[in-house]
């Protein structure tokens, strides 16, 4: 029931109501009896019409009428006059029902069903719709029905666009009409119909139109989403593109058989190498499939191409992934001698890499890098691998690259991939966005003005030709203002703010270096001093820009406001991760960890795991237990030990079971009681330190 006032009925109305109810009850029982006995006489059919006029939602009565139509059509021997009369009767009943309830699914569907029989004049339907849409221009049943009728009539998208335009002209804040416009304009652009073949011209026209709507009444949401869609259309590249890689283009990598052996090379570029294989990481701007030895060529002094096994970093049941990882095996001979090898990776020269939207990777691109192999010493190196890591401030020392090493740091902000064919001219994009930026600078006293400007500036910075982060200060200021201006949605702006801040912090060599520290535990005997990227205490609520952090092995994100670490799975080299003192609410919010096969040290202490009854990341996590498909993979009744059933801790089990953690901190979470820590010790056999205590 909607929109009926709450008041006790007057006594005189009460009698009327009960008479009405009695009448309806009798109608319903007579109708059901006709239905069950399959009586389709004129009187019986008329009775169902009476019932539907009072109660259009009685779905069984619509079913009955369909049966009656079929029965009577058959009886009529398909005599055209009789057929027309039968079907016209149905249309009349629907019209009456709609007058009673404009939103009756059953009535609208019945009309479609009758029309599908192909006997009635469809032109009448447009007239009827015009009448109904005049009364309620937002009724989505009527809009759906209009699309159905337009399809039956083979009306062109241009004609429908004109009709939609008329409705927008009549009332610029008709969201339904703007929606229909987005559907029609998308179609016309896809089909490259005359006047819609030049994307930039279409967009300029549409921007102008929707600007009118937004500027007419800035609180009216009708144009908001349309404008955002146009911006997306302006900047979105259709075909997928490689955004970054590890190793980066032009970099020098040292592969050491020892853990973090510092042999004078830059600690940024020294990687552990005991498996005899090198990881290659490809980061695409959209999720893609089809990365394999035939679509990606790896060439070097020795022929290793055939040996690369490419795997997607997948979440959910998706087939496509942003991140692909290749395992490159080095031939045994090369490992025994210290040497340097140049490797070149090329892709896009043949088809096969396809985005989830169905577009092919079509820009041939390549990157190359040099690998120095440093064979392992025979003696095992004592130290870093076996000692407890302490994340205390005094163990981190400002990193000052000496002049020799500074060159080696360069590749970090040198992420661009060489594209053999320059990307298509982006000057029209700049022009359009600059124009919109100057327009929206005049609408800064309201939230949609500020938000749209922030989005436009962000999009401008992201254009291929732009200097990155030019506008980030201004964008951050806009989001801060929005948080104050629109408190109910402050967390939304906070998340956007956090994404921009994160990107600003890690973009640019100077900024990034100021967050890089050397880890040196003064009480330790270890001589290895890895680089740690410390992004702690920045009040980050959300992370992004992972494509710039593929090189990181040690990361401190503690003392932030993170609720999720979605996207962190791209950082495939990560071995040490500090997430302490955040707002992580469940193990399902940590799904990314499952993909970090190098992870050894993890600090989850002082979060909110186990404190919330509503798990908001449950369905985003691709556990077989979250969804009932594939549940056979896992037997939930499994018992670990001492009566601790996996069922109670299945999330933790699912996230952690594949990791070879040596150190874990979980204290300060609601879930972390004695039983749980016993469970952890059981499922993580490699664990040496749990909550700072050494395990046997």
């Amino acid at each position, binding site marked *: *029931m*909607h*929109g*009926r006032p*709450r*008041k006790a009925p007057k006594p005189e109305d009460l009698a009327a*109501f*009960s008479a009405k*109810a009695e009448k309806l009850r009798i109608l*319903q029982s007579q109708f*059901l009896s006709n*239905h069950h006995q*399959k009586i389709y006489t004129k009187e019986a059919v008329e009775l169902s019409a009476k019932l539907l006029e009072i*109660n259009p*939602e009685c*779905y*069984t009565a*619509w*079913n009955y009428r369909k*049966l009656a139509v*079929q*029965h009577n059509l*058959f009886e009529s021997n398909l005599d055209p006059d009789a057929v027309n009369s039968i079907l016209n009767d149905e249309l009349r009943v629907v019209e009456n029902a709609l007058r009673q309830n404009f939103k009756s*699914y059953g009535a609208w569907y019945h009309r*479609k*069903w009758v029309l*599908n*029989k192909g006997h009635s004049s469809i032109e009448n339907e447009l007239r009827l719709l015009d009448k109904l849409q005049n009364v309620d221009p937002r009724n*989505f049943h009527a809009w*759906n029905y209009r*699309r159905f009728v337009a399809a039956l009539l083979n009306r062109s998208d241009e004609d429908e666009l004109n009709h939609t335009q008329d409705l927008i002209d009549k009332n610029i804040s008709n*969201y*339904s009409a703007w929606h*229909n416009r*987005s559907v029609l304009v998308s179609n016309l652009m896809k089909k490259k119909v005359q006047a819609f073949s030049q994307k930039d011209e279409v967009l300029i026209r549409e921007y102008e139109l929707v600007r009118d709507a937004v500027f007419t009444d800035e609180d009216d949401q*009708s144009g*908001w*989403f349309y404008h*955002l*869609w146009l911006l997306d259309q302006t900047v979105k590249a259709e075909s997928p593109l490689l955004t970054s890689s590890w190793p980066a283009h032009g970099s020098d990598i040292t592969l050491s058989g020892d853990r973090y052996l510092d042999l004078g090379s830059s600690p940024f570029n020294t990687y552990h190498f005991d498996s005899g294989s090198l990881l290659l990481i490809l980061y695409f701007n959209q999720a893609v499939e089809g990365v394999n030895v035939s679509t990606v060529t790896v060439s070097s002094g020795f022929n290793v191409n055939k040996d690369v096994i490419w795997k997607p970093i997948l979440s*959910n*049941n*998706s087939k496509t992934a942003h991140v692909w990882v290749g395992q490159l095996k080095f031939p045994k001979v090369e490992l025994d001698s210290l040497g340097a090898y140049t490797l070149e990776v090329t892709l896009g020269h043949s088809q096969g890499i396809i985005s989830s939207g169905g577009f092919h990777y079509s820009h041939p691109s390549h990157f190359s890098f040099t690998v120095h192999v440093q064979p392992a010493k025979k003696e095992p190196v004592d130290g870093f691998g076996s000692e407890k890591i302490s994340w205390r401030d005094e163990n981190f020392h400002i990193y000052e690259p000496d002049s020799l090493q500074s060159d080696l740091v360069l590749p970090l902000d040198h992420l661009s991939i060489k594209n053999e064919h320059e990307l298509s001219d982006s000057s029209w994009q700049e022009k359009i966005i600059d124009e919109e930026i100057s327009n929206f600078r005049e609408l800064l006293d309201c939230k949609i003005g500020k938000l749209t400007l922030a989005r436009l500036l962000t999009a401008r910075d992201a254009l291929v030709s732009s200097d990155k982060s030019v506008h980030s200060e201004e964008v951050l200021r806009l989001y801060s203002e929005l948080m104050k201006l629109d408190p*109910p*949605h402050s*967390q*939304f702006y906070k*998340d956007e703010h956090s994404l921009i801040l994160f990107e600003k912090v890690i973009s640019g060599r100077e900024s990034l270096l100021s967050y890089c520290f050397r880890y040196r535990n003064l009480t330790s005997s270890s001589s290895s001093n890895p680089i740690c990227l410390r992004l702690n205490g920045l009040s980050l609520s959300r992370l992004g820009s992972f494509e710039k952090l593929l090189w990181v092995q040690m990361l401190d994100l503690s003392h932030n406001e993170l*609720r999720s670490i979605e996207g962190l799975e791209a950082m495939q080299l990560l071995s040490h991760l500090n997430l302490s003192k955040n707002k992580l609410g469940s193990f399902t919010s940590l799904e990314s960890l499952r993909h970090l096969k190098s992870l050894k040290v993890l600090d989850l202490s002082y979060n909110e795991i186990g404190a919330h*009854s*509503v798990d*908001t990341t449950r*369905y*985003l996590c691709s556990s077989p*237990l*979250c*969804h*009932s*498909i*594939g549940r056979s993979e896992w037997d939930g009744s499994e018992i670990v030990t001492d009566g601790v059933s996996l069922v109670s801790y299945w999330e933790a089990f699912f996230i952690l079971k594949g990791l070879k953690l040596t150190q874990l901190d979980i204290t300060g979470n609601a879930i972390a009681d004695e039983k749980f820590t016993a469970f952890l010790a059981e499922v993580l056999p490699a664990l040496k330190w749990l909550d700072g205590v050494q395990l046997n």
Partner: protein
Amino acid sequence: MGELVVDKHVKYILSVEKRKDSFESVVLEHLRMNGAYWGLTTLDLLGKLDALDSNEVIQWIMKCQHESGLLDLYSIMGGVAFCYAGGFAGNIGHDPHLLYTLSAVQVLALFDKLNVLDADKVANCILICFSSVTFEIVCPLFEILLFGSLKIKISSIPIQLIIGHPFLGLLNFMPDISGLQNEDGSFSGDEWGEVDSRFPYLAICCLSILHRLDKMNVEKAVNYIASCKNVDGGFGCTPGGESHAGQIFCCVGALAITGSLHHVDKDLLGWWLCERQVKSGGLNGRPEKLPDVCYSWWVLSSLIMIDRVHWINKDKLVKFILNCQDTENGGISDRPEDAVDVFHTYFGVAGSLMAFYYLLFHCKHFLKATRATNSTLNS
């Protein structure tokens, strides 16, 4: 801030059952199964499910299941009035429909009595009768049967036999068939072929509670839902249909259960959804519409499923819901000062609990009910 007047809501729900002769009850008679789900789930959320005799409820539910399972052949022009074993009607005497089949299964799950069902039979009914291939398969089959004057139990016909029947192509002359032949994975609410993105959700939810999801072509259904996605991130009834909070709940729910939320643009949809919150704290179902307790629920649970619920102000939402309570006689309405009903009482109670208010109270019941509704975790 007010309180959730628990006892009054319980009293209200129990009283609705007794007012069978009011005009509203008669008008809503055909969807009593939905009403049962809303009312009983509310009682369960409030920890008062034992106020009703579960056997009585279950007996009534089973009377709404269509059991005859006979193909009923009486009209050469269509003869689509076959009965299908397994589906549930909205009330005794009415036709079966997916909407009520889900409610029936949910109520049985609530009482932990799914064992009274033949799950395979219900699943087959959903997959055969309620999928829009029905018209392609069953209608020509009718003609074959007509010519042969046979009566066959539909559940006894293996589906492969029906699909592989050599006459199917030849006898395909029925007028109804042409417009409804869709291989697109869509679902219909009943045998009459209405297609809508609510139906894949109902089917997926129902089959997952019955642990029969493996019987359906999930990928096709998911692709159909993805085709209903709009440029504002939301979902409509059919491809091209306007985004609408109720449809979004169904589509996001179906994608969530099948592990396919990568089809959702979470930030875009999240912004659209969080902008449903209006000044009063309530949420509307579409831009520029009035707030409503039921839409508050659809939006809230969609935001939870895509992990963006922190983008709205939950305290203000709870305040709006509590303002819609009839604090005298119990029950919750769509908006403050409107007439209450069971539907909005359920969404109001569930919504305020979901928004973390009152959660410590009867948290156990709450979790049990969400499990019956949405999830598929071992029950």
